[in-house]
């Protein structure tokens, strides 16, 4: 029995340069980055020093708090350098890949005869456990918790997002194996889009499947949790990306860690928007070089989609959770005269003072990264509420976070949210507040206080 949820609030943003469903190449790079910063809440201790040789699947970092969660190398090679940022914070370990790829073999697993503990240990050893995130706090999950559920969303409505139906093509059974493995740890809830009902990822056994129909952020796993089984204080749920479920499926089927994923390369700055198969941690330059439009204008390279992705550069690396890389105009070299009163046909807005509503819903926009206004206090009411489908008052929650009122944050449901849930609200915010940053900092403070 599938449950159907109709999501009304939200906003789809139509951007130019959606990736075409074709694969240009399977990419192999000379070096890869292993980045503990991609795993929020993970405090890294270095296991493999500079100069040591690692196989694909060898732990490079372990979490200081638990000493059990590992991050492993995606390839075999030599640790070339450990890159540190401010206050000696570890940013990446760079692995120089060698030609003969040696992979750690964990042995094939019989799902019917493996205990919860053994499976959990295997995921910890193989570095795949680090991909679990927990709510509250949206950080790397704690292996000692017993979550009340594991939630997986198999689609994203974010602009320029990779289409999981295409990403999973040919690997459907591996995905299902991954789901079956998850069901050994806790009950699994999978949220799919209506378009996926008749595709090969269905039927999914060992999980409760729900269909979510509606605009962005209906693909956010946070929305699914809120509708199916909202989190209360003291409860923990885990989430994991659908692509990462495939990693687990591969481990179960082959006994080996294989962090290959199909990444969408998208955005108006890309000549041929399409998909590329590569390993996580690959240099972004290898993914997009030669495919970026040659213009005088500045371009922004985003590790992720334009709403929740990180600003990156040609020197950046593919993030561990990244499903798409987008390139859009930066806009810091654009000077628009009297924009506040001009009709501005090419600027997308939900506000009808712009005449973009005349162009209809199917027009694709080429938006740049300008904030297009100054930061203000919250002036308009119910702006966020209009695009925020969870049963939460987002503007009141944001205010509680800004004022640091922890009790009120708890009452208003901060345990249920992750920064990404506020992405659409941040997009439309006329006061130009950095909602995702506010929520991230709020969650971090709360986590520290409750620890």
């Amino acid at each position, binding site marked *: 029995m599938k449950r159907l949820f109709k999501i009304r609030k939200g906003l789809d943003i139509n951007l130019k340069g959606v990736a075409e469903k074709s694969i240009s190449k399977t990419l192999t790079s000379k070096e890869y980055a292993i980045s503990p910063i991609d795993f929020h809440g993970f405090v890294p201790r270095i296991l493999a020093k500079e100069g040591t040789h690692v196989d694909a699947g060898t732990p490079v970092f372990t979490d200081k708090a638990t000493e059990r969660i590992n991050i492993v190398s995606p390839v075999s090679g030599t640790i070339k350098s450990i890159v540190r940022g401010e206050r000696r914070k570890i940013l990446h370990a760079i692995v120089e890949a060698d030609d003969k790829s040696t992979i750690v073999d964990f042995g094939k697993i019989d799902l019917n005869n493996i205990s919860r503990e053994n499976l959990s240990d295997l995921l910890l050893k193989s570095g795949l456990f680090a991909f679990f995130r927990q709510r509250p706090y949206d950080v790397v999950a704690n292996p000692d918790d017993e979550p009340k559920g594991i939630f997986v969303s198999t689609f994203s409505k974010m602009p320029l997002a990779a289409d999981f139906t295409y990403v999973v093509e040919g690997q459907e059974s591996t995905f299902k194996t991954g789901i079956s493995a998850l069901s050994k740890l806790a009950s699994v809830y999978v949220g799919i889009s209506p378009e996926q009902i008749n595709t090969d990822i269905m039927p999914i056994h060992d999980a409760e499947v729900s269909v979510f129909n509606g605009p962005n952020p209906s693909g956010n796993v946070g929305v699914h949790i809120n509708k199916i089984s*909202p989190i*209360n204080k003291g*409860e923990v749920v885990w989430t994991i990306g659908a692509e990462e479920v495939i990693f687990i499926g591969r481990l179960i089927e082959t006994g080996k860690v294989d962090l290959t994923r199909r990444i969408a390369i998208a955005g108006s700055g890309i000549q041929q928007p399409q998909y590329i198969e590569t390993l996580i941690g690959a240099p972004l330059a290898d993914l997009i070089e030669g495919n970026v439009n040659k213009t005088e204008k500045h371009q*922004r390279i*985003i590790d992720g989609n*334009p*709403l*929740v*992705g990180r*600003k990156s550069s040609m020197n950046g690396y593919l993030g561990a959770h990244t499903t798409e890389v987008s390139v*859009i105009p930066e*806009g*810091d070299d*654009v*000077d*628009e*005269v*009297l*924009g*506040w009163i001009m009709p501005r046909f090419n*600027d997308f*807005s*939900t*506000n*009808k*003072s*712009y005449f*973009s509503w005349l162009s209809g819903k199917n027009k694709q926009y080429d*938006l*740049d*990264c*300008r*904030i*297009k*206004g*100054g930061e*203000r*206090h*919250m*002036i*308009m*009411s*119910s702006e966020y*509420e209009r695009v925020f489908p969870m049963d*939460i*008052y987002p503007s*009141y929650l944001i205010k509680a976070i800004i004022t640091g009122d922890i009790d009120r944050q708890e*009452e*208003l449901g901060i345990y249920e949210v992750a*920064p990404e849930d506020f*992405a659409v609200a941040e*997009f439309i*915010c*006329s*006061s*130009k507040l*950095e*909602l*995702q*940053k506010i929520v991230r900092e709020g969650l971090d403070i709360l986590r520290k206080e409750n620890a």
Partner: protein
Amino acid sequence: MIKKLFDKIRPNFEEGGKLKSFHSVFEGFESFLLVPNTTSKSGVSIHDAIDSKRIMSFVVIALLPALFFGMYNIGLQNYTLAGQSASWFTYFLYGFLVMLPRIVVSYAVGLGIEFVVAQWKKEEIQEGYLVTGLLIPMILPVNTPLWMMALAVAFSVIFAKEIYGGTGMNIFNPALVARAFLFFAYPTSMSGDKVWVCDSQFFGLGNALPDTMTQATALGEAAADQAVSGDFWQYVVGTMPGSVGETSVIAIAIGALILLWTRIASWKTMSSVFVGGAIVAFLFNVSGLDSNEVAKIPWYNHLVLGGFAFGAVFMATDPVTSARTEKGKYIYGFLIGALAIVIRVLNPGYPEGMMLAILFMNMFAPLIDYCFVQKNISKRAKRMKVNND
């Protein structure tokens, strides 16, 4: 070109530059002329093109029909009372000349204070006063002396807005606070029958009217237990004495359409003000309060008389001071409409209740929101209890 000019003079205004103390003013002008090209550093990379500058500009645009009609009406009333007639253009020009110094003074005083505060707090200049600055001359009687208005502007910007933290943080609508300030400080200049028609000449236009020639507003007449002059259609068109921007329901309706279409004003608040007013006025109509002329004004006339429509469209819907929860907006609006009529009917001293009703409900808006937010909170608390049992 504009860009080059700004780039050239920018160093003067930056830290260490000669004109550092005008930094906010410089930024204000720059962002007025050019869309800021600062790009996002964290969070979303793309943004909706809307910003508060455009929102405020659209409210100002929505106010223009009422303002222009008000200008025309100033001339019309002056000439009619003097027993003369002239072309509509003369009426308008006269009204324009009467209003111009009032608008200039309002902006000069209000923006002056905002500039100073912005500079002091090292913030950008905020646009909130663009709307307030136009609203104040529009809701005052045309004969209010300029110095009085300047005083009211200063009072409201400082005490109704800046001490709360500026645009977006105030509890009371600053324009209404300005009016209320004058109403309590200088009552004789704010009501009665001497203030509604401009009585002096401007640049050779208009007529100097002697004190004996005065006219009250329709509500003023009713409050004095006189028969009310005019009929429904005159009230709708607005060719009668009253605060400058408030008389023409047609002009206000054009503004309302702009605000609703752009979703700057909430249709929930706006419509429930009218519903609340209509129901209460209807109840008074059938209540049989025969001695009270105001109670006998038909309910549909109540909605088009005085500042009711203007308040419902431009004041009650102020997003900052109104209820912020969607369901709260129904209650907030309804109570404003209801209270306005109650004050009109039952308060013998003052014929117009809209101002006090809105200010009163400004105070209660957070309480209304509190109830709805609390409902969400207790739902969550209950859910937790069920799960933990």
